């Protein structure tokens, strides 16, 4: 009895910030000691590492009795009962391991270097890059030929390809020089530097060059994408019985004139489409005032709107800028600008999208209430077929609803057209990106809305690009619906 009590030694074992008193029998060996510790701490013996006793880390075959253990001796145990960490199943991908092309997909689109007052061209180019159909067609069409337009177009195609393949800034030297050769008005120099130019002019010039290249039978891709028609009625206001003259006019972009009353884009456009002009009346055989009333007849896939902010001011001999704010919507509805006939044509598409939206709202409301039962309602065969038919209808060429989504804005900052700075704001995969030459960054939608004007010396929207279809990589892909 005595022998046993004498043999026992009290060790103070520290573990994880706590101290445990353990009565150890040195004669019994390490495994017993470790088992004692396991019962106290839950750490399995093979993970227990004990230090503070003689001879470094306590070995399993060590002889405790030979260690000269002292009553109350302190030692320390290391070890956890925690699970051994496993490597994550999905291996993380690293930027550094990706090729330039892979990176380009992950990174923001590349910016364009400013080659000396080329921001107007850069912003027009970046806005153009948001039109996938254009590049698809340009890729498909043969671009041999020595015409300056053709050369410009192929340089453009090469540039686009280069930008797709890298996350880095691209310097568009070749394209810019060919473009200037093709359109010498952009070759103008001031004090040995290339002069600032109008972004909208650059945009239309590029469109013209592309239209020359991308021939499709009688028409061309640009015409297919941007070309719309409007019916223009000319009614003489001075002679009621003179029959109104009706003709059809093609357009590639709409102009929004800004006067003292202009507040919003829709009104500005509508006002611009009905205006009074003077022309020679065949019946009166003199100059007479006519009411020119235009109505949209066919709507293009892409609608570009030119806010006419620059006008030539004779007294200062400069193109001055109208800084009046013009609000523009994120989704533009052209319904009211259409002719009655067209409106009727649009009804079908509009009904489909409206009812879909209402259904979605309804579903959302139910989901909020918790009526999940009805939400999961199975779609019948008939319904499915109808839905597919609707989809097919909407996917047809041109805009079939009157609704357009804003996808690009070119803004100008500065007092007159010959100076200042152009940047492009482009919707990319659901995010708005700001392309300021070589700098590309994500911005909030509010920032884009702010370019409508209001604050002095800010960027002001100068050209707007609206689209019918939202590309696959955006979250709300499909046809643009009601706001």
């Amino acid at each position: 009895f005595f022998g046993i009590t004498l043999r026992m030694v009290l060790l103070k074992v520290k573990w994880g910030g706590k101290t445990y008193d353990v009565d150890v029998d040195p004669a019994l060996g390490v495994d017993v000691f470790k088992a004692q510790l396991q019962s106290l701490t839950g750490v399995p013996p093979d993970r227990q590492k004990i230090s503070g006793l003689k001879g470094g880390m306590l070995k399993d075959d060590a002889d405790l009795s030979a260690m000269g253990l002292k009553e109350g001796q302190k030692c320390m145990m290391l070890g956890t009962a925690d699970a051994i960490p496993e490597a994550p199943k999905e291996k993380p991908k690293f930027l550094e391991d990706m090729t330039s092309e892979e990176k380009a997909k992950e990174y923001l689109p590349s910016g364009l270097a400013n080659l000396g007052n080329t921001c107007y061209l850069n912003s027009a180019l970046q806005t153009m890059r948001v039109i996938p159909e254009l590049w698809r067609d340009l890729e498909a069409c043969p671009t041999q030929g020595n015409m300056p337009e053709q050369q410009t177009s192929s340089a453009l195609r090469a540039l686009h390809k280069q930008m797709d393949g890298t996350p880095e800034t691209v310097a568009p030297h070749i394209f810019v020089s060919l473009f200037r050769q093709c359109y010498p008005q952009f070759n103008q120099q001031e004090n040995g530097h290339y002069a600032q130019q109008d972004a909208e002019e650059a945009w239309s010039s590029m469109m013209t060059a592309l239209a020359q290249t991308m021939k499709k039978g009688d028409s061309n891709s640009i015409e297919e994408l941007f070309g719309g028609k409007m019916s223009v009625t000319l009614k003489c206001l001075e002679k009621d019985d003179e029959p109104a003259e009706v003709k059809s006019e093609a357009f590639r972009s709409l102009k929004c004139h800004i006067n003292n009353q202009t507040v919003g884009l829709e009104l500005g456009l509508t006002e611009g489409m009905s205006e009074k002009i003077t022309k020679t009346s065949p019946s009166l055989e003199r100059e007479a005032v006519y009411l020119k009333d235009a109505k949209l007849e066919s709507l293009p896939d892409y609608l570009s709107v030119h806010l006419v902010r620059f006008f030539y001011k004779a007294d200062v001999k400069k193109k001055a800028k109208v800084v009046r704010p013009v609000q523009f919507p994120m989704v533009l509805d052209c319904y009211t600008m259409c002719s009655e006939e067209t409106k009727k044509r649009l009804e079908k598409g509009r009904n489909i999208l409206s009812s879909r939206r209402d259904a979605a709202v309804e579903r959302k409301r139910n989901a909020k209430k918790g009526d999940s039962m009805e939400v999961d309602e199975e779609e019948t065969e008939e319904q499915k077929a109808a839905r597919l038919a609707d989809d097919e209808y909407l996917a047809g060429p041109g805009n079939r609803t009157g609704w357009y989504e804003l996808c690009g804005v070119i803004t100008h900052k500065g007092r007159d057209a010959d100076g200042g700075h152009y940047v492009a704001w482009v919707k990319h995969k659901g995010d708005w990106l700001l392309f300021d030459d070589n700098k590309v960054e994500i911005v909030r939608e509010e920032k884009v809305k702010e370019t409508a004007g209001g604050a002095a010396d800010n960027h002001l929207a100068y050209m707007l690009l609206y689209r019918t279809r939202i590309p696959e990589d955006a979250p709300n892909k499909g046809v643009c619906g009601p706001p």
Partner: protein
Amino acid sequence: SANSRKLQAGPMAEKDKKSGDEEVKEEVHLPEVELSEEDEKIKDEVDELVEKLQDEEDGVAKLACETLCTMLKTATGTVTSIPKPLKFLRRHYSTLKDTYTKKQAKNVDFLGRPQFADMISLLAMSYAKDDVTECLAFKLEGSSGEIDQWGHEYVRHLAGEIGIEYQKRKAAEKAIDDLLDLVAKILPYDFTHNSEPQACDLLFEVERLDDVVAHCTIDNHRRGCDYLIGDSDYVPPPLNKEIQKVAFKIYKTLNQYPLALRCAMLLNDMDLISETMEACEDETMKKQLAFMLGRQRIFLDPTGDDTLDEIIGNGKLSEFFLYTARDLNSMDPKTPEQIYKTHLQDARTTSLSANISSHTQNLASTFVNAFANAAFCTDKLMTGEVTQVTEWLHKNKDHRMMSAAASLGMIFLWDVDVGLAQVDKFLYSHEEYIKAGALMAVGILHSGVRNDCDPALALLSDYLDNKTTDMRVAAIMGLGLAYAGSKREEISELLVPLVADSDMALEVCTFAALSLGLVFVGTCDENITEVITTQLMERSEKEDQVNHALTKMLCVALGLLFLGQEENVEAAVLACSTLNEKIAKYCEMTVKTCAYAGTGNVGQVKELMQQLFEKIEKEEDAAHQSVAVMGIGLIAMGEVLGSDMSKRTFEHILQYGEPVMRRAIPLAMALVNVSNPQIIVMDTLGKLTHDADQETSSNAILALGLVGAGTNNARIANMLRQLANYYAKEANHLFLVRVAQGMLFLGKGLLTMNPFHSDRKLMNRTAVAGLLIVLHSCMDLKALILSKYHFLLYYLVTAISPRMMITLDTNLDPVQVSVRVGQAVDTVAVPGRPKTITGFQTHNSPVLLQFLDRAELATDKWKPLTPCVEDVVILEANKEAEEEVV
């Protein structure tokens, strides 16, 4: 009329007679203006007495002399003007001298001689030539009794002449006894008249500084000792140590243990340190001393007293730090994003899908997280759910995983018990890199802490012969960090064979040498010195290793052994010069600058500047010039004047130096100003961060981090955020910017990396060692930190200390008292009772101190046990104050 003409001509004629030296003095004074009636009277009286003094009759002369003396003593006048009698005696000065000689010629000890001599001595103070010690000569002739009859200024002047005379006589080997007698009389006067600095000066001049000890009392020693220690900065070795030893003796004799200990630590004399510890009998005071030892990381042999040993081993550091952190409400973990302030940037510049990230930037985040949450035992990346932690670990690719796992050590810094339990599970990981990182973590969290169970040694020594080099390196580095400054023989036994093996991989050899350098920092250990030197010799003969960055780090390891050992370095420097010429100079320079670290030795700085004059064609042969530039900072860092001067030197080098020198400037500036962001330094570094030379800008970025380390300085934070934008596309620069941001927010602003503490008097050698390893590795960032040796950054851990001041009661429980914190004022040799801090604010302890701050208690209910209110301070209830309240 003839008489009147003579009178008119009088002054002119007299002026003509004056010898050249007196003319000089004449010029200073305005020509005699018309005297007032009163003055005229005094003048006449003085003239008359002088006349009488020349009287043949000694009795008459004596009487006249006595009257004059009384006049001189009683003439008060205003503070700013010369007493009138003294003024009027001026033109009689040479007459009086002549009279004295004449009288003495007649009778050696004529009547009234002592008084006469005393008076001339006084006049000599003002009117003698500058380079004659007439004042002293006549004083020695004069009465031997009173020394203070002519007041304070006279004693000062006399002391000055004694110094001059002493040097003269010493050179001529003449007797000096009479001088020493005089000194013995001046000393009590000085010590009772607030002139301790002058007393010290005098004794120093006559080379009898030891005598000061006898005169010091509990009331007057502080000013004297402050002066001695302040003085020692400007005295060349070995005299400086002599002075410090005297200060130590004074403190020791007067039982001022904390100050005695500080002095002993300043001398870095282990014998004096143990002597102080043993001499102190008060248990609470002993604890206070133990805290001071812990702060300086001096691990005395176990005393047998558990509490004391725990304090010395910094076993309670984590507890007190976390108490402070809780009190200051800074426990919430900080994420790297919070530090980068990504939310402040208006727009994200990259959009990446969640599963893709840059491993370089992830590694940066690892370090940022480690630095920002260091010692807090909690964070958002490494201490959560195991799955999340491993996910983060794997976002650090390959060898970067090592640093990621090692960051756990930083987070659990100083908390050995809990930290080891957390690290342990990663030792079982299937990923070798994680295992290696866990080994490093074991070492890192032990940094500065001594644990009697030695878990780090037990754990890490098992991996020293591991097959994997990474694992070995990690274990070696862990040992070095865990036992830095401990001088443990076991470590030397384990690591020396690894260094000595010439076939061993270079990295194993280098890291083993660095660990030895850390553990035996400043010991000049012969065995280790020899082993490292031999390796340098052998490896510098190998083509592939001689120019390797790691071979250069081997030199640093050697330098660490001699850190602060200026007296013992010569042999080692000589040995370095015999190495392969490609590395000899580099090694020599490294070892030498290490030896003079923090001494402020001007001679050495000059020698280093000499090195910069040499124009070297090939850049790779000029590496030693970088070391020389950094050496200037290393030497100057210890002392205020020197570090200010070094800044000017750096400006010159920036303007005229070669790129290889400019590169080292940011590093040198960082060294001088670690955790001490002075505006001029920030500005210079800010400019250099945009330098065209890549290496310079990289170093400047890291330097900004070091200069701001642990200060949360808003200006640097802003600079770094802008740099992050500027270098957004340059991965390496961005990495360094991130790391610098992490350092800036070191311990969320509760920690510091400055190696100086205790009123900036003491230099923590292990801290300097850690800083040096990192700064030297910055000389070749591309090969080391930006390559696979990023974990070198963890060597900074040895420099990390809390910048808190926490007050404890005698039971070592934290107690809150109100404390004034303000900028420290240098009060050395300032008369009266000057304020020691300025622009203070009153807080409740615990408080944080900036580098230039000083704290003092704002209550008299408590008394600090140490006058140096820093780090951990034990307070005693002040009984006197309590009685007053009653």
